């Protein structure tokens, strides 16, 4: 009897091993994700990129996800926070809204000790079974990062913040060649940080592991952020498909997304940030109504029905079993 069972066990192990080889060679993983999914439903009305508090966002399904301090590489930092994310699309563009609590609105980087509030989304560049490392991707699986910066938002809303804005009482006797670009080397070589005429507060970046983050040639992500009553709301928007080299989205397809938030008041910048793990992002063909396809009473009735069924069976089992 024992020998028979052992042979059966051996046969099961062999069959399982052969099945595993076939699955691996077919680049299939016998498991499906059970993470929280951020669903981008189709918006029937226009999604205004310049108004993060627009009512259209009330129709999107929000998710709330925890953030942890970045603890992988120096400088470590950030902390225990939470971010609420919503997403919509209009068949041409993907819109993602991030919302998080922040007691202070930090928008200036003029002084050495000033740091801006910021938020970022991270997507895998290429689709595949393997999710990139959440810490800035990896060489075989790069990531596309969209980072909104509060300081850039100020440049757009109030005009480029220059030295006189930061030191209004400073006086300069003479400043030769003030209007000649040759004397602003960063500006003339196209350094995006030196731009005086910004069109977007969102930086489009690529990375293939930490220490490799690079500004993308195409700055095609739009967005805007607004701080109200102790919380930020930031909208990101980009065409669904912009070709090779960047994250791509299509209706009825899924990819992954991770979030990061920086609090300037806490001297957070670069790697000093709060990060999430990768979640699933699905671009759905469902219409964003957000009204609830079912009301609270119906949900309660279904829950009570299920609980009653399981409860009856459990009670039957409890009473029928002998301790």
């Amino acid at each position, binding site marked *: 009897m024992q020998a028979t069972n052992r042979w059966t066990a051996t046969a099961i192990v062999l069959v399982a091993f052969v099945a595993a080889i076939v699955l691996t060679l077919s680049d299939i993983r016998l498991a499906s994700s059970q993470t929280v*999914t951020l669903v981008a439903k189709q918006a029937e009305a226009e999604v205004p990129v310049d108004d993060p508090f627009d009512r259209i966002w009330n129709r999107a399904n929000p998710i709330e996800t925890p953030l942890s301090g970045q603890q992988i590489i120096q400088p470590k930092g950030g902390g225990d926070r939470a971010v609420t994310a919503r997403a919509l699309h209009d068949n041409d563009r993907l819109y993602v809204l991030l919302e998080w609590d922040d007691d202070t609105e930090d928008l200036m980087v003029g002084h050495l000790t000033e740091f801006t509030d910021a938020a970022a989304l991270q997507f895998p560049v290429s689709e595949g079974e393997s999710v990139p490392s959440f810490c800035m991707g990896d060489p075989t699986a790069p990531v596309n990062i969209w980072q909104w910066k509060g300081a850039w938002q100020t440049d757009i809303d109030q005009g480029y913040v220059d030295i006189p804005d930061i030191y209004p009482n400073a006086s300069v006797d003479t400043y030769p060649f003030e209007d000649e670009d040759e004397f602003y080397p960063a500006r003339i070589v196209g350094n995006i940080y030196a731009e005086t005429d910004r069109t977007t507060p969102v930086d489009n970046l690529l990375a293939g592991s930490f220490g490799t983050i690079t500004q993308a040639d195409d700055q095609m992500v739009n967005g805007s952020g607004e701080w109200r009553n102790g919380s930020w709301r930031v909208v990101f928007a980009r065409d669904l498909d912009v070709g090779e080299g960047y994250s791509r989205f299509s209706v009825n397809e899924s990819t992954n997304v991770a979030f990061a938030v920086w609090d300037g008041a806490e001297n957070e910048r670069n790697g000093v940030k709060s990060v999430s793990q990768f979640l699933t992002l699905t671009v759905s063909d469902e219409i964003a109504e957000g009204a609830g396809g*079912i009301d609270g009473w119906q949900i309660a009735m279904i829950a009570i029905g299920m609980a009653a069924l399981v409860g009856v069976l459990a009670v039957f089992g409890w009473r029928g079993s002998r301790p």
Partner: protein
Amino acid sequence: MLGTAASQPVASKRLTSPDSLTAGLRPLAITLLAAVLAETLLLRIVVRVGVHVPKHSVFTGLFEAASTLGSLAFNFASVLALILLTLILTFVITNKRSRAFSPLIVFLAAALFVGLFLTLVTEAPEADALFGVAAALLALTVLITAMRVGDLTPAVAIALGLMVAAYLSYEYYTLGYVFYRIFDVAAIPPLSLDALRLGEALAMVAAGAVFFAWGLPRWGNIGRAGAAVVTVILLALIVAGLSPASTMAILALWTTGVSLFLPFPVYLLALALFLLTIVACFRDRQATWITAGLLLVLLAGYMAESTYQHLLFLIGIIFVSGLVLEGAERSVERA
């Protein structure tokens, strides 16, 4: 004294009978554990950490080999977990003492497997809901069944209850969003993040309860070698946590799924207690199934982010609940 107590843990008492079915299950469980350990080491740790190591010719080859072997181990473990869960649920269902719970377990197991199949072939949220609800209720049913028909000591019942409570907290967090999506409710489920953090805290408390239930009665089994192994693992984590390029977060986030919102020493203490218990049980020949179960629960992680991790958790708690042997003994009687 502790050594004497170690020979009497209730859940392991029934595991001593040399029946044929457990003789058949044992190699399957050991193979599953080997595959899960290989997958964790190669896929979750080496590949995740290795992507940041500068690669040259020989390292590139080793990295690619680790990645391929890790994928193979993952699929092997997934297939074996599916088979093993089916077998041990069959044992529990056919157990004479827990037969009254059979209709409920059959109903939930059927829902679980149908849900699993649907999640693999579709991306419908209804499939995730079916699988998730079935898995959560099955875990709860295992707990109730074990408390009713098993001879669990209070410490074992508390430890098992805390593990299941932590799992249910995480399930509330994920399933809340799944149902809100299905019913198109544009709101955040109540207390979702609180439930997630409560579950993480419960998982840490559960580690302490696990130690009191199974580790402390076998304290004498740990020995210097066992203590040394646990110390080395903890020191590696501490050093990694203090080093400029740390693997601590990778280990924490990718392997166990905790978000580290509590002070780091709490996680170290919890891991130490859990590992000491596993070592103590491993060196007790009567506690094979408890060792296997605790290892599977640890490797499933707090956040079960894939169907595979859910299966590992369910197998793990069935093993530690002692219900497998209940079924096996009954089958032996029939034979």
